[in-house]
């Protein structure tokens, strides 16, 4: 029987569910011109949730509902950053949505439901809970991608996302069922002890492979990356931003829960598989990104390569590696909010600012936004002293510590290749002449400008002051 304590452990999640339902109701009674209230209410609601997560942070790991739900430091950090990233997405999205007549209540409620999915997923203590959280997140995401009903591109992206997403969820579920068959347990903590003594090790590994497919799909790692470019390009930019930031934090959380908490005993099986996926992702992501002319599509391939680097941290299969991967996930989420945020800021009615050529000569028209974008791009490329470098440095270190020097070298080589396409965008912004109809001085809201600037400058500040964040990441995995 659930008692009051269980409910208290899940307080932030319950709170968000209740508020999301209320907002849905509120939206129905709101006049369109009052809708900006919904925007601010949603932001406050998410910030309050983040505060509740921080304030209620337990000293030790707490479980609720018979181990279904785990509240530990890893989940808390991921939740806080997921909520913050979503707030950023909402702030960056408002002018874009308003100009496209998509400023509707569903956007906000779906976003909040997706975040609830993320929170449940990263706190999951049971295979069923993993699946539930994942479905809540992805179903909301499908709807968000399809929100732009009149665009055939976004409908196509939504269908593609849905079909492939359903397939991968099926794979994940199939793998889970086999793991359950081999061990007789759905509880991740129990799995951890049972997995090594299973009477059917082959079946277990078979299940593991299917689960890995599901994980790789959700991360967007090659060879299960096909949906990423289409969805990134087809979805409206705010939704893309959400998928590129909050969702990646969730995907990391899921991967860690399943692989370490659940099947940590099988690490000698999943390490080489993950290493192969990492190499493929870095290769495909970085090489294909070079030839893209669409900025969102290029960033999509860049995501694929970044997921390869993130996996490099997981391959380490130790607390050092997990903390570096979590650091990577957080840094990636913060960098992609900036890069997509600039796209959102520069977009105006009838102009998406999606093509790389749209940014031509941006430095002459809007030096500040060109500088913010350049910060994000140099950071994504991993050039010191920006934040992204330290994330890369940590995962490379994790690979070397796991005695996979070759993987680190492969990662380094692809970092050089990846550098090119980021530099290409900087080149377009700084060295090319501006063109008629290109990106111009943005007319975006003050809130967007200020928050985006803080977000981008944080990449520089965190490049110097990255110790505390790393400290949290390491501490949550029990390291000093």
């Amino acid at each position: 029987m659930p008692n009051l304590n269980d409910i208290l452990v899940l307080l932030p999640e319950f709170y968000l569910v209740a508020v999301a339902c209320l907002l849905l109701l509120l939206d129905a009674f709101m006049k369109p011109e009052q809708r900006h209230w919904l925007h601010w209410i949603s932001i406050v609601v998410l910030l309050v949730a983040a505060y509740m997560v921080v304030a209620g942070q337990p000293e030790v790991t707490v479980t609720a509902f018979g181990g279904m739900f785990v509240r530990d430091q890893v989940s808390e950090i991921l939740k806080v950053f997921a909520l913050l990233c979503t707030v950023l997405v909402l702030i960056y999205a408002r002018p874009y949505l308003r100009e496209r007549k998509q400023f509707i209540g569903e956007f906000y409620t779906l976003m909040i439901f997706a975040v609830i999915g993320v929170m449940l997923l990263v706190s999951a203590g049971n295979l069923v809970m993993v699946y539930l959280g994942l479905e809540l997140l992805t179903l909301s995401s499908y709807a968000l991608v399809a929100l732009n009903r009149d665009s055939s591109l976004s409908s196509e992206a939504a269908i593609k996302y849905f079909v492939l997403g359903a397939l991968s969820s099926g794979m994940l579920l199939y793998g889970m069922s086999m793991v359950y068959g081999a061990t007789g347990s759905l509880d991740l903590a129990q799995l951890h002890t049972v997995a090594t003594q299973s009477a059917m090790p082959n079946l277990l590994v078979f299940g593991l492979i299917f689960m890995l497919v599901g994980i790789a799909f959700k991360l967007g790692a090659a060879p299960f990356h096909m949906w990423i470019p289409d969805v990134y390009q087809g979805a409206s930019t705010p939704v893309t931003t959400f998928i590129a930031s909050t969702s990646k934090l969730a995907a990391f959380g899921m991967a860690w829960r399943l692989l370490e908490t659940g099947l940590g005993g099988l690490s000698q099986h999943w390490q080489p598989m993950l290493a192969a996926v990492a190499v493929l992702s870095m290769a495909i992501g970085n090489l294909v990104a070079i030839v893209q002319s669409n900025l969102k599509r290029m960033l999509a391939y860049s995501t694929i390569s970044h997921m390869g680097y993130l996996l490099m941290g997981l391959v380490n299969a130790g607390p050092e590696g997990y903390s570096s991967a979590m650091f990577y996930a957080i840094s990636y989420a913060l960098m992609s909010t900036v890069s997509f945020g600039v796209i959102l800021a520069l977009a105006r009615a009838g102009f998406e600012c999606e093509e790389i050529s749209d940014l031509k000569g941006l430095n002459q028209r809007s030096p500040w936004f060109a500088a913010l974008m350049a910060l994000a791009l140099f950071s994504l490329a991993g050039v010191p002293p920006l934040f992204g470098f330290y994330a890369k440095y940590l995962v490379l270190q994790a690979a070397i510590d796991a005695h996979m020097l070759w993987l680190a070298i492969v990662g380094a080589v692809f970092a050089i290749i990846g550098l090119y396409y980021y530099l290409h965008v900087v080149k377009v912004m700084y060295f090319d002449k501006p063109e008629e109809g290109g990106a111009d001085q943005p007319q975006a809201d003050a809130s967007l400008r200020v928050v985006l600037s803080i977000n981008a400058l944080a990449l520089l500040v965190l490049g110097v002051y990255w110790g505390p964040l790393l400290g949290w990441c390491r501490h949550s995995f029990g390291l000093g």
Partner: protein
Amino acid sequence: MFNHLLSLLIWLPIAGAVPVLLAGSARPNLARWLALLFMVLTFVASLFLLPQYDAAQGGMQLVESHLWIASLNVHYGLAVDGISVALILLTTVVGILVVVGAWEVIQNKPHQYMAAMLALEGVMIGVFCATDALLFYVFFEAMLIPMFILIGVWGGPRRVYATLKFFIYTFLGSVFMLIALLYLYHRAGTFDLHTLAALPLTFTEQMWIFFAFLLAFAIKVPMVPVHTWLPDAHVEAPTGGSVVLAAVMLKVGTYGMLRFILPIVPDAGEHYAWLVIGLSLVAVVYIGYVALVQEDMKKLVAYSSVAHMGFVTLGIFIAFMLARGLGDMDTARLGMQGAMVQMISHGFVSGAMFTCIGVMYDRLHTRLIKDYGGVINVMPWFGFFYVLFAMANCGLPGTSGFVGEFMVVLASFKANPWIAFFAAFTLIIGAAYTLWLVKRVLWGEIHNPHVAEMKDINGRETFVLLAFAALTVALGIWPEPLIHLMDSSVTQVVQQLVVHKI
């Protein structure tokens, strides 16, 4: 006493970039004066290094060490020895001269130009101070961004190609250095250079680390055969960019060799000294010939930079041969000292040469040698300086170019007369390409009507060239203070060479 001098030197120009940037394109003069102010302040602050640093004692002084990342034992560690002090002074002097040199020349967004220069200056000083390998790497790489922008925005027609090549080439080398550093960290648990120097490594480990380091620094120096980015970058860079690139940035490569290859992998260094010496001689002789046939003045000086930097790498690695092979510590010191003097001297001479070319380019907007001829007739004062720097470039006694090269040739004679023979080739080839350049540009009849309209240097240009000239001549006739400043540090560097770490 104030013990954050090094931090001040690094962060003052970087902080200065912010108000310069804020001055905006609407107030270009404010941006220029602010930039000059911060450059001068940094220079004045760097002068305090001289009384603070005890040259007789040597070793790492003015130590600053704070825990940067506690969980990884990464430190914000700064310290200088005599060699760093000399290079920092070179950097701060050149910083003032490029700002003055760019005063009216840069009309397009001068505030961004000046801010990039200031940021670059701070980061370069950081490289010369860092005693933590990760911090060094961060500064080493951070130099790329401002330089990338400098070449790309204010460069010549093929600037995009040149700047992308520059960035990717340098990044390529340093990424492997990062892997080597991570491996060392994996072994030692720290990035502290002093601890890494004491870390025992097997020969195989040393070999791989050596090549990773060598690639990173050889690209930066640049050594043959990874020098091809330099002529492109130099030709397309604005004058100030070229000056900083040649005068300071190339030294980061040889400085890195001193701080990383020599102490951390001395055994591999000895084993592969022949390779580096060979490549240095190729740079001196072959690149000298390549310089001879250039039609673009900037390209010619760029190739001559490669040749002159060959002397620096030669001096450093000949010391391996002398100290470890022959046990001749004194001559090893001579070679190393020559390399250090050559580093500083080349900083002034190449900076001056690029400034001269910039002066001509501003008037005629061409860098091709054939477009000039008879410049001395219309620009006598300029001709005076140009000939002086040309003489220094070919190593005339009495100029700074002579001192370092002479010491290196002398040291290599002890190691192997043939090495000295090829190294001494530079006296002929260097004189050939430089004097021929002077002949074609300065002397002769004026055959281009535009040359006849060229005006002699103005006060601002005279100031810059005079400063370079004074330093070049001072270093040539009285190198003693510089040698004294670096003496005990050079001794310590050479002592590191003979340590066996296997």
